């Protein structure tokens, strides 16, 4: 690991021995802490509590449907958020200034609102508000609330990812496009966007992890995703801890595989020459910066001249 090579010399025999002693002491402390915890929870961790979790019925009726509901909500939210994100990003990068401002405000607003709040809002909208309360069947209200809440926030994040992908491309890409005679919108469409979309792929998968985790908020609006479904299994309450542990383990397995997949994508892209990648952190940070991409600058500069000329596409 590079951080280690920065901070420490390579340990000699004496330091190695010292490290080993510290390590053994540390492990003993951790084991003692874990033992205390298990001892405290022993009433919940007996064989009969575990037995209720590992029955065919528990999986067929609670865990598997829960996983499916979680995946269903996450997949729907991913698709819808990508669409919303694309629209918002296009708006925020539009050549029409007022539209740019409106979309910027929308993106900042969507991003500032906690996902849970958006979920609660959309869920109660389905329950109480006039057209939806009759339109949406009762069984669907939870799902619509979860998906809409997730789309609301993640759409804004996707928009920022895409915009960050476009803006982080080297200026030369825009300049080259314009200088071979492509119009502004052609440059964006055929040169900048394809590269930006590839660049955001690893971050998109990382965002999917966040979406999967956030589906668990559906617990609060009683959507039967994995956590809610699992806790339904333990209505008696005597096996609540094993149920939680299994649910958490399932979430971890799903998300850890997605994280590894994102890392794999990142490494694969890093290997091939010429492609670049944006990170979520980058997208979050750049959203507050006033600077716009090379293309908008070119558009603003060309604005006055273009009014006197026929549109580029007509040439």
């Amino acid at each position, binding site marked *: 690991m590079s951080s280690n090579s920065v901070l420490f010399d390579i340990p000699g025999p004496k330091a190695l021995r010292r490290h080993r002693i*510290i390590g053994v002491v540390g492990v003993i402390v951790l084991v003692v802490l874990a033992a205390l915890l298990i001892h405290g929870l022993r009433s919940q961790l007996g064989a009969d509590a575990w037995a209720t979790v590992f029955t065919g019925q528990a999986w067929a009726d609670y865990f598997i449907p829960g996983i499916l509901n979680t995946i269903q909500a996450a997949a729907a939210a991913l698709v819808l958020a990508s669409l919303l994100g694309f629209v918002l990003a296009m708006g925020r990068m539009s050549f029409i200034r007022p539209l740019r401002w409106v979309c910027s405000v929308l993106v900042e607003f969507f991003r*500032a609102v906690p996902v849970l709040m958006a979920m609660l809002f959309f869920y109660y909208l389905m329950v109480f508000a006039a057209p939806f309360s009759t339109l949406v069947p009762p069984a669907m209200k939870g799902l619509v609330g979860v998906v809409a809440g997730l789309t609301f926030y993640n759409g804004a994040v996707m928009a920022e990812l895409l915009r960050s992908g476009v803006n982080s491309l080297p200026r030369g890409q825009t300049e080259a496009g314009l200088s071979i005679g492509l119009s502004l919108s052609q440059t964006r469409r055929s040169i900048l966007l394809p590269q930006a979309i590839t660049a955001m792929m690893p971050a998109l998968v990382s965002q999917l992890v966040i979406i999967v985790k956030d589906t668990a908020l559906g617990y609060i609006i009683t959507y039967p995703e994995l956590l809610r479904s699992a806790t339904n299994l333990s209505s008696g309450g005597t096996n*609540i801890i094993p149920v939680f542990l299994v649910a*958490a383990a399932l979430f971890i397995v799903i998300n850890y595989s997605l994280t590894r997949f994102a890392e794999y994508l990142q490494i694969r892209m890093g290997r091939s020459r010429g492609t670049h990648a944006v990170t979520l952190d980058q997208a979050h940070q750049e959203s507050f910066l006033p600077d716009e991409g090379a293309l908008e600058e070119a558009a603003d500069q060309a604005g006055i001249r273009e009014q006197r000329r026929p549109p580029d596409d007509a040439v």
Partner: protein
Amino acid sequence: MSELAQLMRQYDVLGGFWMTIKLTVVSALGSLILGVIVVIMRISPVKAFQLFGKGYVNVIRNTPLTVIVTFCALAFYNVLAWRLAGPDARSSVQLFWWGVVALSVYHSTFVAEGIRSGINTVPPGQAEAARSIGLTFGQTLSQVILPQAVRGSVTPLGNTLIALTKNTTVVSAIGVAEASYVMKNMIEFSPNFIYAIFILMALGFVILTLPVGMLVSWASTKLAVQR
């Protein structure tokens, strides 16, 4: 409009946001302390600590916050009856502190990763140069590595703070009366005002998070190390 004002008086909107701020500040401190401990383990030369730090980050970061929050309340408060706020405190106070613990544990992984990514932005040549001019380990760390690493971790830490502010809403799952809990009650009792209530409460979060975001963007540009 007067009915909305009436509604705002009836429900403790400001109290809800005050609870959100309290949760944010206390959990930010908690997650900073925990995160620093974890990152020290992760970058320490002791193999066992490295593994533990890595395992902790991977497990906690991939667990939904909702699971951690409800688990803390159910397992530690209900089953184990550990009373964090002293034996006599009311259950709402106890749950507040369990909420803080859950938020701190969850966000400490992001703090740890943020600091670590800051350290990783420092090229190895910096440490090598520092050692070759005869600086000791402590001097290398305090004069060369950390000043650069802190600059690199401004962005991830700032983003974590913003995420934390918004994630405090999750503790409404265990009944802590913060902003989203107040909003839920308001909507349930006056569904006619659902749009107004949502916009109002959402704007509260815009006011809380937007300045932090702008500050972080400004600071990370200002402090960026040109390489």
